[in-house]
């Protein structure tokens, strides 16, 4: 057997292993004790902080009820008592989701929560609000009842007037339903996850300094 060739100078594993680099980046930016904290600054005891978590809870029930409805098909809830109940769960959890989200938004506004490097977290929150409105809108259009008919006929003028209707046809049930059950919920869920990661990465903002404090 030929002797092994002398070792050639290689980059260290730390330099070349991308998995290791990604893991270290995550460890550095969002360690587990930040993602799942067991202690918080004492001022986080306010009820306003609850609006965020109950918004997430409502979103969970929106998604769960929506998964059942989409699995059974768009006709099911019109002809089944159980289906109607699941539609009602979807309808009211959506109403609660928006109620809690608006309360969360106003709460964060009056706390000026974008301070100390948190502007992107605020911005993504507003994008979530917009994406949620679009998701709910396509849901109202997908109901297959009188409401969805009239909303479609009425809304087409706004969409067409802005040029959006050429690509986003609210009279096309297939397009609205597809967007509602697939693309838009995935978008909202992804953005919410990103928003939460940003909140956990930076932690909650300090109270506004009585003397003025820092700005974003």
């Amino acid at each position: 057997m030929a002797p092994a060739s002398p070792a050639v100078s290689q980059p260290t594993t730390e330099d070349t292993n991308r998995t290791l680099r990604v893991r270290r980046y995550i460890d550095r930016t969002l360690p587990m004790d930040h993602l799942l904290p067991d202690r918080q600054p004492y001022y986080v005891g306010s009820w306003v902080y609850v609006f965020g978590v109950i918004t997430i809870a409502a979103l969970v029930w929106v998604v769960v009820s929506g998964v059942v409805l989409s699995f059974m098909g768009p006709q099911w809830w019109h002809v089944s008592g159980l289906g109607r109940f699941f539609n009602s769960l979807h309808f009211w959890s959506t109403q609660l989701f928006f109620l809690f989200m608006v309360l969360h938004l106003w709460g964060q506004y009056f706390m000026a929560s974008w301070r100390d490097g948190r502007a992107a977290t605020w911005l993504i929150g507003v994008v979530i609000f917009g994406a949620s409105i679009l998701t709910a809108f396509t849901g109202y259009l997908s109901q297959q009842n009188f409401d969805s008919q009239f909303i479609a006929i009425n809304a087409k003028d706004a969409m067409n007037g802005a040029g959006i209707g050429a690509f986003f046809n609210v009279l096309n049930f297939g397009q609205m339903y597809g967007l509602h059950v697939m693309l838009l919920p995935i978008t909202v869920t992804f953005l919410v996850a990103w928003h939460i990661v940003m909140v956990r990465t930076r932690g909650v903002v300090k109270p506004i300094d009585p003397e003025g404090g820092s700005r974003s």
Partner: protein
Amino acid sequence: MKQKDATQEEYYRGIRSVPYDLVKELVIALAGVAIVTIAVAAILSSPDEPPVTIASWSQDDAVDFVTTATGELAGTTTSAGYGQPYNSTADAAQTWGPIAPQVWFGERIPIDSANSFVIEPLQRAAFSNSDLDSALKTWQSASSDDQAKWTDAYTKALADAQVSDGKVTVAEGDYGPLPVMMTNLLGMARSGALDGLLQISGRFYQTDYTPALLFMGDGGYLDGLADHWSLHGDQWGMMNETGQYPGQTWLWLYTMWYQVFPFTDESGILGLNEGNADLGIIILMTVLTAALALVPFIPLLRDVPRWIPIHRLIWRDYYAPKKAKA
């Protein structure tokens, strides 16, 4: 180090921390929201007013159906003269100065109202109906002046039409082939056949209801039902659903603009008026949404929370010791 570059440990240095259970909070929130949602869903259910079909429209309001179909032939309905994306009617699209997105994207969803809603369905039924076949040939070979004369006279006569045994009858007059065409179209509609014919696309599966909804939207029947349920734009309709259920209440600001000047006024201001309200309001809401997203960077808007001491209520524990010292 700037606050925004600090790690959490540096950022919270000197601030007392207290025990906290994030998972417990989430579980309680999930359970609490589930209880409220299940209770409200069980007690209040959800809206599900049956949809209008071409059949139910023609059965409940035959005169409106025939008047609308005649209007499609005359080219006087909303969809016939809509402009883009359905057709290229001149000056029909909403514009604001040089901003004309409706025109820019062109005729992406071409709809010929007269042909799609009236002529083509009748042609499919004419193979076994010689009277209808003859009436259609008369219509299609007539001059546009004759067609206009017939539709005009027939539309006027329909104002005093009578309905009996599912048929619409009007006073004697020169309406050309229209009575035969409309009697057949009404019969097809009442039987439900027209619902299917409006969806024919040459493919088996179909999920695009654009033709049928545009046709129904041209009539007064669906509009009357919407008025009953307060669903119109000038009734804050976007926030309502049938049966007194809440609609998209989060669109309150968007729908509010439809109730106020200049979007309610024929002349308006700065080129914004009732005629281009949809475009104007979409632009306005886009600007306002961008402003909301960029609040952290907009002076005055970002300062409001300092001026209105709601934060003192939110963080009253934080501020309380400082008051005591003072």
